[in-house]
C-alpha cells in the first residue's frame, strides 16, 4: 500500500477511537467538565498528563531542534523533564489538597483577593494562548503534509476535531481521549526510532544505540562529531551557547513547565493527595520514554541527513528530498554550479527561502534570497522527525504512523489548553467574579461557548501566524516561570506571604518578561525592531530571561510582604491545612 493509503487508514482509525471515547465519557456536571469528576486513576491520569504535556513541539520539533543544535538542545530535554520534579515535589500534592478547580482559584483564595485572581487569570490566558497558537499551526502542518491539503484547510480540520471532543466531554472526555492519544503517540515515536537504531547500530534500544558503534567500528557520536568538524560545523557534542545562558534557559523551562496551568489542573483530577504524587511519577516516567529517545533520534537523523545529501549530485537525490522541496521546507541553490549539494556551516538563505516560479538546470526550485556563503542547503528543522522514516527508507506504514502520532500530540495538547482557557473565562471570571449566581447548567454552557470562541481565535492564529507566534511559543514558559510559579510556591511554603507581595511579584515578573521579549525577540509591529543579541542583559537570551524575572518576582514578593500586613488567620489556616494530606484536614477544622 502507498504512504497516502496507510496515512488515511491509521489517522482514520485513531480518530474513530478518540471520538468513540469522547462520546462514551460525556460530561454531565461542571465537576465532570472541569476536573473529570475528580475520580481518575493515577496511571490513567499520568498518561493523560503525559499526552497533555507532550505537544506538537515535543513530538515534531524537539528532535529536529536537537538535531541541528547538538548539545545546546539539552536545555529542552532537561528543562521539560526536570520541571516535573519541581511539580511533583513542590506543587502537585498541595494543590490537590487545596482541592479547587483552577490555578486562579488557588491564587484568588490563597491571596484572599479578586485582584490577585484577575492577575492570575490574565497570566493564564496569555500563557495558554501563546502556547495553543503554536499547536494549531502544528496540526495544520501535519494535516497538510500527509493528507496533501493546503495548510489552512489543515488548520480548519484540526479546529473542528478539537472542538468536537472538547465540547462533548470536557475534562472527562479529554482525559480519557488523552490516554488513547498517549498510546498512539508513543508507539508512533518509538517504532521508527527502534527501526533506525537497529539499522545504524544493531541495538534495538535507541537510548543505548545512540552511544553504540556503527558498522565500521567507530562510535556513532564520534563519527557525527567528525562529520561536523569536516563540514565546518561545531562539534555535535559541544554547544555554542554560553554556560550561563544554558543554565538560565534550563531553569526557566523547568519553572515554566511546573507553572503551566494546563499541566497543573491535571492534578486536580485524581481522588487523593497520594494519588497526585503517584500520578506525577507516572507522568514523568511515561514522558521520559519519549524524552530519552528523542536525542537518539536526533543523532540518527543528523548522521543520515549528512551522509545522504553531502556532496551528492542533485540528479541522484532520493525522492523524499524533492517532496519536501516541493512543500518549501527544503531548498537547494547550486552556488558553485557543480550540480552537487554542498551542506556546510552558515545560512544558505536569508531566514526562510523565497521561491521563484522557475526551475533550475536540474529541476530544482529556484530561490531568490540565497546568501553568498558556500552552504547550498536549507533544511527546516521541523521536518526531521516527519522525514526521518523516509530518509532511513522504512516501510510505508511507519510513515503513516508518524502522521497519526504527530496529530495525537498536537490535538491532545490543544484540547487541554483550550479547556484551561474556557475554564478561566467561565469559572474564574464569570462564576467567581461577574455573575456569582449562575446555575451549574449555565456555567457549563458558558464554558462551552468560551471553548468555541477560544478555538476560533486559536485557529486564526494558526491560519494567519503573525510572524511572532513561532518565536513566542518557547517564551510561554518564560512567562509562566515569571508569573505563576513563584506565587504558587510561596503561597505554599511561605505562610507570611500576603496579597500585596504576590500581586506585586506577579505583575512585575510578567511585565518584565513581556518587555524583554518585545525588546529582544519579537519587536513591536513595525514600530520597533528587536535588538541584537549583543545587547542582551548579562548575556541572557530572551528564552532564559524567565529565570531572571522569576528571581525578581520572588525577591519583590518577599520584600513587599514583609512591609505589609500579614495574611488573615483563616488564610494561614488554609496554608497549614494544605501542607498535610487529607486525614489531618478534618482534624484541624475543629
Amino acid at each position, binding site marked *: 500500500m502507498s504512504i497516502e493509503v496507510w496515512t488515511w487508514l491509521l489517522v482514520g482509525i485513531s480518530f474513530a477511537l478518540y471520538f468513540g471515547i469522547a462520546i462514551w465519557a460525556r460530561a454531565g456536571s461542571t465537576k465532570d467538565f472541569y476536573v473529570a469528576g475528580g475520580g481518575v486513576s493515577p496511571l490513567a491520569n499520568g498518561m493523560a498528563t503525559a499526552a497533555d504535556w507532550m505537544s506538537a513541539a515535543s513530538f515534531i520539533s524537539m528532535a529536529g531542534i536537537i538535531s541541528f543544535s547538538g548539545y545546546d538542545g539539552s536545555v529542552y530535554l532537561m528543562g521539560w523533564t526536570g520541571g516535573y520534579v519541581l511539580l511533583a*515535589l513542590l506543587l502537585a500534592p498541595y494543590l490537590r489538597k487545596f482541592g479547587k478547580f483552577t490555578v486562579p482559584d488557588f491564587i484568588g483564595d490563597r491571596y484572599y483577593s479578586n485582584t490577585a485572581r484577575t492577575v492570575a487569570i490574565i497570566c493564564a490566558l496569555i500563557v495558554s494562548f501563546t502556547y495553543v497558537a503554536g499547536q494549531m499551526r502544528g496540526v495544520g502542518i501535519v494535516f497538510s503534509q500527509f493528507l496533501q491539503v493546503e495548510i489552512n484547510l489543515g488548520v480548519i480540520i484540526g479546529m473542528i476535531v478539537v472542538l468536537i471532543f472538547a465540547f462533548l466531554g470536557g475534562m472527562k472526555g479529554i482525559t480519557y481521549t488523552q490516554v488513547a492519544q498517549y498510546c498512539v503517540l508513543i508507539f508512533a515515536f518509538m517504532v521508527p526510532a527502534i527501526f533506525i537504531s537497529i539499522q545504524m547500530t544493531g541495538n534495538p534500544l535507541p537510548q543505548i544505540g545512540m552511544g553504540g558503534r556503527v558498522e565500521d567500528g567507530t562510535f556513532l557520536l564520534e563519527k557525527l562529531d567528525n562529520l561536523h568538524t569536516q563540514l565546518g560545523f561545531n562539534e555535535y557534542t559541544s554547544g555554542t551557547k554560553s554556560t550561563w545562558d544554558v543554565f538560565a534557559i*534550563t531553569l526557566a523551562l523547568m519553572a515554566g513547565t511546573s507553572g503551566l496551568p494546563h499541566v497543573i489542573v491535571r492534578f486536580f483530577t485524581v481522588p487523593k493527595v497520594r494519588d497526585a504524587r503517584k500520578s506525577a511519577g507516572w507522568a514523568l516516567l511515561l514522558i521520559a520514554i519519549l524524552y530519552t529517545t528523542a536525542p537518539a533520534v536526533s543523532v540518527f537523523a543528523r548522521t543520515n541527513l549528512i551522509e545522504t545529501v553531502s556532496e551528492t549530485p542533485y540528479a541522484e537525490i532520493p525522492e523524499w528530498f524533492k517532496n519536501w522541496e516541493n512543500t518549501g521546507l527544503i531548498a537547494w541553490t547550486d552556488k558553485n554550479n557543480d550540480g552537487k549539494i554542498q551542506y556546510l556551516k552558515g545560512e544558505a538563505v536569508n531566514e526562510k527561502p523565497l521561491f521563484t516560479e522557475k526551475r533550475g538546470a536540474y529541476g530544482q526550485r529556484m530561490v531568490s534570497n540565497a546568501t553568498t556563503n558556500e552552504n547550498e542547503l536549507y533544511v527546516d528543522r521541523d521536518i526531521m522527525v516527519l522525514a526521518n522514516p523516509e530518509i532511513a527508507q522504512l516501510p510505508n506504514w511507519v510513515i503513516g504512523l508518524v502522521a497519526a502520532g504527530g496529530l495525537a500530540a498536537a490535538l491532545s495538547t490543544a484540547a487541554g489548553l483550550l479547556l484551561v482557557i474556557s475554564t478561566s473565562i467561565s469559572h474564574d471570571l464569570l462564576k467567581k467574579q461577574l455573575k456569582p449566581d449562575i446555575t451549574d447548567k449555565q456555567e457549563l454552557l458558558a464554558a462551552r461557548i468560551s471553548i468555541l470562541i477560544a478555538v476560533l481565535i486559536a485557529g486564526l492564529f494558526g491560519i494567519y501566524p503573525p510572524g511572532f507566534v513561532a518565536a513566542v511559543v518557547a517564551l510561554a514558559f518564560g512567562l509562566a516561570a515569571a508569573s505563576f510559579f513563584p506565587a504558587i510556591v510561596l503561597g505554599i511554603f511561605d505562610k507570611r506571604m500576603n496579597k500585596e507581595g504576590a500581586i506585586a511579584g506577579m505583575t512585575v515578573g510578567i511585565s518584565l518578561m513581556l518587555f524583554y521579549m518585545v525588546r529582544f525577540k519579537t519587536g513591536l509591529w513595525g514600530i520597533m525592531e528587536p535588538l541584537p543579541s549583543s545587547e542582551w542583559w548579562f548575556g541572557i537570551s530572551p528564552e532564559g530571561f524567565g529565570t531572571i524575572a522569576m528571581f525578581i518576582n520572588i525577591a519583590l514578593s518577599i520584600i513587599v510582604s514583609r512591609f505589609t500586613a500579614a495574611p488573615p488567620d483563616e488564610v494561614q489556616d488554609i496554608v497549614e491545612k494544605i501542607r498535610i494530606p487529607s486525614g489531618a484536614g478534618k482534624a484541624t477544622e475543629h
Partner: protein
Amino acid sequence: MDKNRNAKNYWKENKKYLLILLGIWFIISFGAGILFKDYLNNFHLGGFKLGFWFAQQGSIYIFVLLIFIYIRLMNKLDKKYGYSEDDTD
C-alpha cells in the same frame, strides 16, 4: 496542641526530604549536565562523553528515580504521623 506539634514535625521532615531530593536534582542537571559538563566530557560512558550523557540521558533517568523515591518517602512519612489516606477513607 498535640495535633499541632504533630503537623509541625511532619512539615519539618517533609521539608528535609525536599531539600535533599532537590539538592540531588540540582547537582545532576545543573551541575553534571551544565556547569561541570566540560570537565566530565574527559570521561566516557561507552560511546558517550560523560557530561553530554548526563545532559541528554542521565539527568532524565535520575529525575524519574527522584520522584519515585519521593513517593515512597512520603507514603512512609504519612503513615508515621497518622496521615495515611488509606486509614481515613
